């Protein structure tokens, strides 16, 4: 199984971007690229060639689900596992997001010290 190395994180809030970058790069040792919007992700994702994509659900402009749909349209990214990040974690919502093609859902707020482990577990489940 290939190692999880490259993570694309799509998130519009600067505070969360910063803490996620720290959590994934420093704690997890991953290579991380942050995109501030769904549009930016669709533009830059293929060139970055991520192993895993984390998508915030609620973003202005393209939200998480529509970004996922657009990313799935890019052949090189069609198979890359995607997890949603959201502050709503009702079981029914998790099922809904999974039905859209997400591998998993990460609850916000996340614990910066635990995020990398969580991401790694999702990756192992998906691989």
């Amino acid at each position, binding site marked *: 199984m290939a190692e999880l190395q490259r993570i694309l994180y799509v998130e519009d809030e600067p505070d969360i971007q*910063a803490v996620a970058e720290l959590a994934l790069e420093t704690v997890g040792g991953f290579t991380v690229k942050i995109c501030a919007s769904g549009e930016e992700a669709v533009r830059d994702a293929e060139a970055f060639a991520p192993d895993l994509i984390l998508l915030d659900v609620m973003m202005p402009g393209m939200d998480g689900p529509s970004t996922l749909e657009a990313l799935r349209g890019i052949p090189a990214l069609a198979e890359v596992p995607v997890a949603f990040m*959201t502050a709503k974690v009702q079981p029914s919502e998790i099922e809904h997001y999974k039905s859209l093609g997400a591998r998993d859902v990460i609850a916000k*707020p996340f614990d910066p010290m635990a995020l990398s482990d969580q991401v790694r577990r999702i990756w192992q489940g998906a691989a």
Partner: protein
Amino acid sequence: MTPTDAEQALTTRLEELRSRYLERLPDEFAELSALQGRLSGQEQDRDVLDELQQRLHKLAGSGGSFGCASLSIAARSLEQRIGAWLEAKELSLDAPTRRSLMDEIEALSRTVPERPERPERPERPAFRVAPEARTTSDSTLEVWLVEDNAELCRQLQQQLESFNYEVRVFRSIDELKGAMESREPDLLLVDVMLEQGRENATERLMDSPQVQALECPLIFLSANDDFPSRVRAVQLGAEGYFLKPLDVPRLVNRITQIFEERRAPPQRVLIVDDDADLAEHMRLVLTAVGMEARVLASPNDVMDTIATFRPELVLMDLYMPEYAGTDLAGVIRQHEAYTHLPIVYLSAETDIERQIDAMGRGADDFLTKPISDLQLVAAARSRIVRARQLEDRINKDSLTGLLKHASIKEAANREALRARRIGRPVTLAMLDIDHFKVVNDTYGHAVGDVVISSIATLLRQRLRQSDIIGRYGGEEFVAVLPECEAEHAQGVLEDIRRNFASLDFGRKGERFGCTISIGMVCSAAYPDQDGPGLLVAADEALYKAKRGGRNQVQQGFPAHTREVTD
């Protein structure tokens, strides 16, 4: 950098991010207050509430990552309340509601702690979360069997596959361990004696951390009833220990039962507490372990909420400003349908006399605040389990776990009425085991019981979760299939009939098979019949199947159409 330096650097960086976040918070709170100030109590509040909701959603999603877990919880509670208002058809927030919203928005700033709080981890509670039920009736469940006796393997495999389980066979523990590297089965079935008795599986498995961490149920089979192996099985968390010669139908029943327990619907808890933060916290804790929890919005809605949410437990704060918990419990108990609903009080009160007084007025127990998350979950879980057991004892047949005669009749009636109301057909089937008396007379009642519970297992397995099944009489069963066309029902019932015929029953080496006759009717063919009428028609169709030579499915049609078609 040494690890400690690295940790130090990380902590420093996290602190920096946190202070930056905290610096921005006062502006955010001011924005929220300003928005709240624009509320007028009219329909045009919708846009303002939308914006408020979005901002609160962001706070809920970020606070905990910056050491402000209480802020997250408080913001989430507000967000949800606003969401509920927005869902209502008409929007009119009266002055007291707006005032309390103002108070709570102002209170947000007070939730920000001086020192970082331990982050909330709803996805990783400190206690073990019940494994999420992977099982639905649509997906095939995988049973892994570790057995080196080829004949027993073949027999088990055939029987388990008749019940729609997928079986994967391993000859040794090493083979099993190899496969477990990549995935886990839904259930593991292990023979204790392997390698012609040279290897004891319970011993081998005790040494394996992989097996210790196993989430799926484990069952042992053994030719020897030795105590040390049984104890090791318990220590390994085994859910069953079956002695050879194997009673395969009983084993299959046990397996099905285990899966059904895991598939049980989430436990429902209603929380009544005027402390919104605490209530929300309890809701999150219970939700995190897979329960469905709801906070009562207003005491006046208690009966409506109970009727729609159908809680299996009410957690009730004893002292609330408007009404006492005992008053609300009294109101609940006035309704006959809810006399058995467990009510547990939450209270900081340690005065034993007041608790006894409250117990005399309809409470089941007390939990004294502050209650730990673990204790809350354990208390709620065990009470609901007990309540469900009691409910089952009342409504269900003890041998098969299916509904009793009266309950299935009631269900047939209810579904026939519903079918007419929604304009979708319901199909009723009546099933009867062929020559069952001969089985009982030849092999005894114990074997007869196994035959009966096997058909029950098969019905539960092959029908949808929304279908309703009951034991109508001794060897007679009724299945109610809502929103199911005759053609589809016929296919499913044929499948059940065939599978039942392929099962092997036996006692002390003697083997025999059994068959079943089935009569079915679809409400589409009987537009004027109610539940009892459809049952009579299904009984006639069953009679037709018996007369036609048994081991078959017959569909019933009203007399006049038969005259036309015959």
